[in-house]
């Protein structure tokens, strides 16, 4: 599902954020990406949804080679994935329903199908009763659920999450993790960058540790491995 082959990402200012990463993530896997700040985690994640282009090497996501993908094809590529961020990235002026529906409007889905599908995912994340509320009227956990609902509404093969629990209290974080596990159980591949040691050590999954732009550890069912 996700293949990287000797990928290097060098920024114009000379910083080498990713320095020769080779990795293979299979369909249906749940992968934590861990590592200290500034280790290249974020760039590694950004390469997956083509926020960044690799300087060299191949990145193949769900059959699409990112390295050769033309700019005008990027939107169509992104429709095959879902992305979730620490800061939720919801459209502040749209209500819960509209935020989730937006991802389907973009692909010009039938209005009837949109309504059905949006209510389905909102039910999955437990926000069916708050469809008319604006993001500003929701708690952080609820906003993240909206964001997750949006990421899976067009049935992506992969969901990429960058620190999804970073802004949430522990209890809410567990709720969010339950949703991710539920999504994963339905066959969606999940890649999650995280600093949350407790979660990684409790819900045991494959752990990829990145330091200095390289993979220093890749263990199935591994632990967080860092102090603090």
């Amino acid at each position, binding site marked *: 599902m996700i293949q990287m082959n000797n990928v290097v990402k060098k920024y114009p200012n000379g910083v080498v954020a990713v320095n020769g990463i080779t990795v293979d993530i299979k369909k249906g896997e749940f992968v934590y990406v861990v590592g200290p700040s500034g280790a290249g985690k974020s760039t590694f994640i950004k390469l997956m949804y083509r926020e960044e282009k690799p300087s060299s090497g191949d990145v193949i996501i769900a059959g699409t080679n990112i390295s050769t993908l033309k700019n*005008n094809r*990027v*939107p169509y590529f992104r*429709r095959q994935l879902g992305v979730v961020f620490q800061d939720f*990235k919801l*459209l502040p*002026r749209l209500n819960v329903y509209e935020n989730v529906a937006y991802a389907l409007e973009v*692909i010009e889905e039938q209005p009837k199908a949109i309504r059905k599908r949006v209510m389905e995912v909102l039910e999955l994340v437990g926000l069916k009763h708050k469809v008319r509320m604006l993001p500003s009227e929701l708690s952080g956990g609820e906003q993240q659920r909206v964001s997750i609902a949006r990421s899976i509404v067009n049935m992506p093969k992969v969901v990429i999450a960058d620190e999804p629990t970073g802004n949430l209290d522990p209890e809410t974080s567990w709720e969010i993790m339950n949703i991710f596990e539920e999504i994963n159980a339905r066959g969606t591949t999940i890649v999650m960058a995280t600093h949350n040691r407790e979660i990684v050590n409790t819900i045991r999954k494959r752990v990829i540790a990145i330091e200095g732009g390289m993979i220093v550890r890749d263990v199935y069912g591994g632990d967080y491995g860092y102090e603090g």
Partner: protein
Amino acid sequence: MAMKGRTIRRHFRESLKSLNRNGWMTFASISAVTVTLLLVGVFTVIMMNLNKLADDIENDVEIRVLIEIIEDPTEAKAAEEKLMKEIKSLPDVEEVVYSSKEQELNNLIEDFGDDLSLFEQSNPLRNVLYVKAADPQQTAAVAKKIEKFDNTYDVVYGEGKVEKLFSVLNTSRNVGLVLILGLLFTAIFLISNTIRITIIARKDEIEIMKLVGATNSFVRIPFVLEGMWLGVLGAIIPMVVVSIVYYNVYNILEPRLHGELLQMLNVTPLLYQVNALLLILGILIGIWGSFMSVRKFLKI
């Protein structure tokens, strides 16, 4: 990629909703459009009227051809007709009007009073041809050619003064054009800048749209339509104000200007033209401003 009708309707709906959601930003943009278009409108109306005045002054310039006196009436008539034909055959001549010396004297008596009527006994004036050049600026050249014809006693067109008048009129036209262009440029700059600020405030929105897989045109179209609405809404007040003010000024001044050289442009074609100009300008600037501003954030 052909866009579905449903999607186009969605873009229209979205653009209108967005105007509403961005309340203050919308207000700021519309105000910028309103103020600048009002200036453009007022200035255009004034310039168009001044231009008409300049045209009228130019068209008032004519050549007086004084005809040689020939004693024999038949010969005189033949000579006058020949001269008239010759003048008419000149390429730049638009109109030749004959005025007998009796008519000339009557005109003088009308203008200066009955004292002159004693000249009726022995009229010292000459028969005259009044010649208008098709292009007033060619008056001097036409006059020179007429001088060479037979039986012209004198050719008068206000030599020197006319040239000076034309150069003043041409300069003032150019100054007006430069001012209007400058104003237009300022309007475009001011309006598109205001729109840019409102869009910069929404760059996160654009980023999110791109993240969920919106194509550039899908992101851009609602913004561009929104810009169009801003242009339309911003043009309304200038259109109404310019129309009402001009209509009233016209109705007050027109009767008093009756018979004067200075005439205002008629309300009907002028206000349609100016209103169309303001509306089109508003729409174009709105669309252009949004287009350019969004473009900045669409580069991946």
